């Protein structure tokens, strides 16, 4: 298994950062991205068009710096693309564009689109009889404010969409909060759920592989407020 060391990743992030200040959300997403790409997702630069690959959909498209760094670390994109992120000739915007970046499954940026696209992707794989690939969608707790997510959560739960995993990075940034926890919005609709420390790689790995194949699964990765 290829893993990405924290030092490697920090160096790549620094190239994206180019002296700018990153919001806390960049760092709060990094651990879960690392665990996904190092230990969970069955996709490589050679299989980005393989219909049987796992799909990772970054719904909170602003959490892009760590995403680009990971894609570079794993060879999906050349490392030198990181140096000009957001520049006039760059393929790497402040939100990712699937038509410009190899390995990026969806263009995102406007919140509340990834989970619906993920449900459709999961349905497409099911219609094709592809039981193996899994669809992972990464959201933020504040992103759950968007009602479109709740359309997707209710439908995926009601129909037992077992090849779908949602990951909610919960840094307590939803303005009105989620009393009872973000996971309860999913479990009440029939999802299985794990809420874990979003910095604990082993706990994340266990949660991210904890689905039962019969129901959609959600992993809430809790990090410190505002991170």
């Amino acid at each position, binding site marked *: 298994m290829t893993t990405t060391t924290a030092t490697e990743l920090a160096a790549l992030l620094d190239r994206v950062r180019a002296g700018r200040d990153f919001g806390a959300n960049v760092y709060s997403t990094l651990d879960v991205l690392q665990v996904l790409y190092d230990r969970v997702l069955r996709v490589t630069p050679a299989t980005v068009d393989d219909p049987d690959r796992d799909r990772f959909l970054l719904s909170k498209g602003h959490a892009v710096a760590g995403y680009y760094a990971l894609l570079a670390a794993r060879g999906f994109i050349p490392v030198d693309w990181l140096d000009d992120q957001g520049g006039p000739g760059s393929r790497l915007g402040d939100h990712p564009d*699937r038509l410009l970046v190899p390995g990026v499954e969806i*263009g995102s940026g*406007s919140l509340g689109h990834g989970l*619906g*696209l993920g449900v*459709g*992707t999961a349905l*497409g794989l099911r219609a094709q009889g592809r039981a193996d690939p899994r669809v992972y969608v990464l959201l933020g707790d504040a992103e759950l404010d968007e009602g479109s997510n709740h359309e997707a959560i209710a439908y995926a739960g009601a129909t037992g969409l077992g090849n779908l995993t949602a990951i909610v990075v919960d840094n307590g940034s939803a303005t009105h909060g989620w009393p009872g926890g973000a996971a309860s919005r999913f479990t009440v609709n029939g999802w299985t759920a794990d809420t874990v420390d979003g910095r604990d790689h082993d706990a994340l790995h266990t949660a991210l592989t904890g689905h039962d194949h019969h129901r959609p699964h959600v992993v809430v990765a809790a990090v410190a407020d505002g991170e």
Partner: protein
Amino acid sequence: MTMRDRFVTSAGEVLADPRSVIVLADISADAFAPAAARHPDRVVNVGIREQLMIGVAGGLALTGQRPIVHSYAPFLVERAYEQIKLDLGHQGVGAVLVGIGASYDRASAGRTHLAPADVALLDTLDGWTVHVPGHPDEVRPLLRDVVCGTGSAYLRLSTRSNAEAYPEAGDLRVVRDAGPGAPLLVAVGPVLDAALAAVADRPVTVAFTHRPRPFDTAGLRALAGTEVILVEPYLAGTSTRVVAEALADRPHRLLALGVGRAELRRYGGPEDHDRWHGLDAAGLRRSVDAFLDPA
């Protein structure tokens, strides 16, 4: 048989292709129950969730499926406009949207069920094909044609219909030829019969199309003299931009007729609204007379 009936039958046939998936938000779900029983994984009813309906279509298309998305026009096109923009266009994938309840088909339902701006709204996006059939018999070939493609297309079905079907009328089809230099009237979809009646005793060439996007600009240039009259069954002026660009190098006058912008807050039936928007034969006649015989 209505356009909607023809759509349900034709969409059922199209499901023979394993790429096809029908995506519903409760509307017409009963009509699709037999198809759903045959293809449980490829007739998807998400419930009354229009944002999800389009998001699901985008996701299906990302896996290589061909989604056919169907609902009532205002809920299909207007309610989830950002999903249409981002989950289809921005992802670089296409879907076939099939709407019923065109303009004021259900006039008595009031504003919530009226969608005269649907074509104008989709016209803000790039690359869409828009079909506005004028007769139920036109629906099947149009649906089969767009489902075979990969781009995005909108089929705008209506309860309104012309007496005769014109199955091959993507490009402008001359229905009545008044000779070179005569004013040209272009009727889109089900307004053809009223337009023909309106100019029955005037020397006006009448051309029909059920494909306002992409508009047949070559045909327009070949047929147009100085005066061009557009009659569209949706928001007046929707195709003004296209006609003006096509004829930019020629002096011309354009009259664009269609559904007015003002909210009338009146019920009644579609025929009443035709009259109030000046889209019945008498109203069209008044507008055409004023345009061709200015005081």
